């Protein structure tokens, strides 16, 4: 395709792609050459591939006030932002310097407070900021680092210089998105990635892991030295690092779970942790495990309801005290939000001189803190050229552009500034640079240009800050290019840092050196994760069974006339009711007088059972399954996740005038996906402890269904058609291969109950369950949890098939009811013993 360069928007802004004469800058030429050599269709394919990958990987950004529900797809432009090596070296050095400086300021404010005493920081910037937490004063920090993770938003001014717009010090978001952007864009331009030396991102995350492991070891040593009952880490035993998340409704939850999976850390919520003896413990299936480091995504004051914000339901009571005792490393240290203030920007050049003895390498956008009388007067005089922003996070106000205001509005803004000057800052309105973007006209992809800003990430190591070579570039949405944020809707870009050196492929996972380092079991399974896996197992089986039951019922309706259907027809309807797919009678009287639906009446009900958004239809069940899978995001593979995503999208569109045939076709598609999910569960997941909980869930759910199905089937007339029983249990093919006759009670029930080679038989479920539960009894002292089910098994073996395996048999019916009841209590007992946070937890060794 031919990018029409001369049609690009020119202005007095810096253009990332073109120099002042309209020529492409050298570092863009390889990409441009690639684009120019291609047919428009090739470009369109790249765009589509990127969009498909974003969708299929389920990359989302949650917007709190989003009316479309929790999920919003991530917006990623195909064109990267390219930065040449020498320019990057300046950026990286500047960001490292700034992180070093801010860390020192943070240590001082919560420590000696010399900067306050010397008058280098006005007290208002500390005490007027609600991010200042008195409880955090005096907390010690390993290697004097409190600001472990830091990000900074930078943008380029018309003269080509990069300027700092704002600092992110609390729990900087976006590094995970940058990584995902890279994965997607690098597969869209594989040739360029092979030919250009683009800096890899994985080294940064490797050093992040190394650093956290380093400090984790220090914490472990401290625990072993000071806390009775905690032993030192064994040779080669890694410290336990967790990512603390506010949960799935947080705007960047997707990123948190992605990073957890990438870094190999458990993603935990506050309720997964508890503090005892001044140590943070992770509640796991195997008891409490001491935590050494926490990478947190929860805001400072929400981290500890005991000492900080008492209203927080997200945090861990006692966390502050654990940090104070040096028994946990929190990255970033509690209280770091204090630095996230535009008011600080103007003081940094002097602080840099006095604290580091260096000149600040990268200037901030000119910023005035109105708390200084002279600054306030200047701001009032020059309102037209300035943007007014809150100085502290507790001051709620959107950026106000002076030039937008009419005289009346200006008056009231000035009054607001004079009333509480220290609450506001003013920033120079900078015309930030434009980067090329691919406009989204699919038929004719074209290059346009939009204002761009770049978020750069730093992470502390014991030897200084490591900088992610790349970052999250964002372009403004729409015409108002003055504010670039993801919350307001914007598009992100991959960021390519060119290097002179060739980049070796690099994997984050280090090579294990000896057989001692081999790991056979993931060390930690949190109680919450075990519970999620258990319910994911139950819901996936329930969904599959619902779909199959619906399919059998709809087929019976379509394929047979009412006269051809027999006793099984009302039983099938009854089973649909058991699944809440068809409405249940409301009271005893209605149950007694219940009559099967006529064909005309049941048709719309069955269509609703598939598509309705209200009842427990297949469509809503699929959404529940999606939520369950979402909670497990870091445990399941990308392929697995993609299937869940595709499945959930199947039912998103509204189906106003669907027919039974439509319903059947959707059910068929859904069943295909469900079976794929079963394949992932059986063949693609490591059979560790977590898998066992999922498997327990699957088998309990299937056993319950089989008990209900067979107990209802037994009450059918002797001569009923049994083929549907084989269909809904997926046994028709097996039966036909074995018996060349119409299904009869004895062989059907033998196959469905007793055949332990048949994964769809009752005894198969029971055998597997008893095996797992007995192992749990042996390993985890689960209190004879297997006994009851084992009794059921023995009782089943006592039943005489010739006598019992026929319609109307009461002994078999009783056995089915008893086994059903046992599955119900089993589920409750598992949840009490392993999932419930309210039950007393056993510490290891006690």
């Amino acid at each position, binding site marked *: 395709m031919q990018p029409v360069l001369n049609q690009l928007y020119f202005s007095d802004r810096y253009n990332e792609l073109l120099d002042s004469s309209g020529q492409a800058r050298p570092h863009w030429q390889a990409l441009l050459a690639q684009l120019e050599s291609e047919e428009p269709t090739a470009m369109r394919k790249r765009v589509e591939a990127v969009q498909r990958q974003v969708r299929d990987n389920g990359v989302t950004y949650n917007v709190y006030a989003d009316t479309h529900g929790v999920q919003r797809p991530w917006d990623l432009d195909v064109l990267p932002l390219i930065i040449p090596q020498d320019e990057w070296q300046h950026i990286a050095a500047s960001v490292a310097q700034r992180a070093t400086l801010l860390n020192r300021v943070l240590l001082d404010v919560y420590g000696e407070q010399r900067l306050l005493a010397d*008058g280098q920081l006005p*007290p*208002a910037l500390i005490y007027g900021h609600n991010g200042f937490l008195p409880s955090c004063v005096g907390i010690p920090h390993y290697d004097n680092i409190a600001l472990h993770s830091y990000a900074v938003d930078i943008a380029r001014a018309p003269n080509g210089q990069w300027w700092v717009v704002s600092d992110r010090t609390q729990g900087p978001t976006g590094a995970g998105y940058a990584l995902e952007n890279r994965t997607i864009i690098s597969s869209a331009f594989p040739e360029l990635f092979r030919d250009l030396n683009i800096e890899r991102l994985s080294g940064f995350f490797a050093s992040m892991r190394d650093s956290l492991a380093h400090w984790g070891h220090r914490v472990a040593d401290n625990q072993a030295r000071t806390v009775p009952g905690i032993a030192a880490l064994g040779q080669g035993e890694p410290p336990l690092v967790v990512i603390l998340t506010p949960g799935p409704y947080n705007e960047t939850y997707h990123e948190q779970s992605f990073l957890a999976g990438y870094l190999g850390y458990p993603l935990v919520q506050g309720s997964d942790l508890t503090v005892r003896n001044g140590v943070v413990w992770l509640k796991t299936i195997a008891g409490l495990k001491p935590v050494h480091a926490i990478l947190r995504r929860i805001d400072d004051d929400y981290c500890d309801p005991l000492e900080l914000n008492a209203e927080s339901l997200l945090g861990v009571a006692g966390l502050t005290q654990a940090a104070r005792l040096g028994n946990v490393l929190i990255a970033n240290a509690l209280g770091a939000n204090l630095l996230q203030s535009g008011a600080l920007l103007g003081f940094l050049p002097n602080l840099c001189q006095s604290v580091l003895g260096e000149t600040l390498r990268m200037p901030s956008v000119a910023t005035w803190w109105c708390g200084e009388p002279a600054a306030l007067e200047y701001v009032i005089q020059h309102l037209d050229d300035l943007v007014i922003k809150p100085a502290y996070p507790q001051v709620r106000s959107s950026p106000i552009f002076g030039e937008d205001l009419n005289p009346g509005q200006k008056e009231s803004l000035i009054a607001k500034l004079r009333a509480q000057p220290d609450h506001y800052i003013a920033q120079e309105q900078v015309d930030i640079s434009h980067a090329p973007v691919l406009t989204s006209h699919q038929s004719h992809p074209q290059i346009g240009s939009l204002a761009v800003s770049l978020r750069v990430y730093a992470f502390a190591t014991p030897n200084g800050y490591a900088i992610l070579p790349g970052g999250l570039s964002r372009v403004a949405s729409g015409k108002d290019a003055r504010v670039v944020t993801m919350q307001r809707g914007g598009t992100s870009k991959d960021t390519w840092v060119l290097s002179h050196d060739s980049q070796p492929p690099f994997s984050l996972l280090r090579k294990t050196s000896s057989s001692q380092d081999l790991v056979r079991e993931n060390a930690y399974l949190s109680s919450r994760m075990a519970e999620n896996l258990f319910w994911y197992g139950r819901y996936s089986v329930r969904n599959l069974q619902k779909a199959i039951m619906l399919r059998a019922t709809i087929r019976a309706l379509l394929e047979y006339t009412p006269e051809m259907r027999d006793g099984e027809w009302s039983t099938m309807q009854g089973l649909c009711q058991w699944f809440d797919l068809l409405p249940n009678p409301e009271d005893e009287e209605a149950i007694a007088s219940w009559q099967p639906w006529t064909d005309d009446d049941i048709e719309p009900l069955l269509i609703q059972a598939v598509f309705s958004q209200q009842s427990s239809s297949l469509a809503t069940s699929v959404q529940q399954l999606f939520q369950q899978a979402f909670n497990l995001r870091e445990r399941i593979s990308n392929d697995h996740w993609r299937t869940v995503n595709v499945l959930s999208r199947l039912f998103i569109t509204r189906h106003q005038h669907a027919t039974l045939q439509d319903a059947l076709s959707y059910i068929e598609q859904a069943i295909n996906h469900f079976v794929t999910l079963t394949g992932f569960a059986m063949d693609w997941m490591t059979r560790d402890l977590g898998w066992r909980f999922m498997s327990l869930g699957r088998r309990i759910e299937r056993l319950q269904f089989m008990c209900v199905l067979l107990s209802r089937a037994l009450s059918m007339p002797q001569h009923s058609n049994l083929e549907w029983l084989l269909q809904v249990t997926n046994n028709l093919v097996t039966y036909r291969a074995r018996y060349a006759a119409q299904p009869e009670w004895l062989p059907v029930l033998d196959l469905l109950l007793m055949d332990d080679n048949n994964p769809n038989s009752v005894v198969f479920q029971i055998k597997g369950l008893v095996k797992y539960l007995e192992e749990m009894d042996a390993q985890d002292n689960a209190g004879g949890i297997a006994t009851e089910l084992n009794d059921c098994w023995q009782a089943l073996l006592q039943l005489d098939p010739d006598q019992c395996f026929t319609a109307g048999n009461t002994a078999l019916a009783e056995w089915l009811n008893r086994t059903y009841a046992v599955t119900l209590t089993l589920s409750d007992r598992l949840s009490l013993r392993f999932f419930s946070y309210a039950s007393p937890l056993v510490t290891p060794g006690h």
Partner: protein
Amino acid sequence: MRYQVEHQTVYSYDTCVIQSQQLLHMMPRQTDFQQCVSYTLACEPSPAEQSRRCDSFGNHNDYLTLLTPHQSLEVTSRFQVDVQPRPTMQTLMQSPAWEQVQAMLQLQGTQHLEATPFIYATARVKCSEALATFAQTCFTPQRPLLEAAMSLTQQIYAEFEFDAQATDISTPLDEVLKGRRGVCQDFAHLMIGALRSLGLACRYVSGYILTHPPAGQPRLVGADASHAWISVYCPVNGWVDFDPTNNCLVQQEHITVAWGRDFGDVSPMRGVVLGGGQQQLTVSVTVTPLAYAAA
């Protein structure tokens, strides 16, 4: 004067609590006018873990962790303190005009670092135009700081009604200002908000006050309560305490436990429990002047 104080807190829960973490501000501070003679803390059931530290305001914090399943929790602090008289209003007349203090704090904050943490709005004490206006009837131009503060103490006492039913710990200041009723904590927050809205430094003090039984009647055990008042920063006289609930300059009948920016920094007992369901709270405080106790 020596006082004995007993402060008992009882929580009853509907269902079993299996883990309880409590943070206490109950041990009295040492001050220029007060020395703690003895202090004991009793907890039933007995805690699995117990520790004490000094927070950044210099208050004593007790941490308790209970791991024994329980349906009621009883925490009792008992202590004796000696309290000396403080300067009277006559000796305090030498205070600068309040505008002068305001300017010092704003422009030379560095020289008044002990006061600067107490100038700004907090979660519970928001500053506002309305509060500033309320204060200005007492803080007239060039009036000496402490004289104006005494006058504001009187104004709150005169215009507000003590009413334990009108508010709870979450009632915002605006509502107290409009409703003109509340308890000691509301009046303390109100006065702090008014002074900070003028740019002055003011802190929240929690403790106890000696109450006087009606003439001829014995002192009732448990009839007292924890109390709250405020302290104003004066560059000449240091921190000076006023009690808007009782319309007085604090003298020898107030026992100081802790101070902070607002109630949230010093609440006598805050905790996080697992389980428990609904809870009922009973607090009883007895302040006994030991000289009288002997009689």
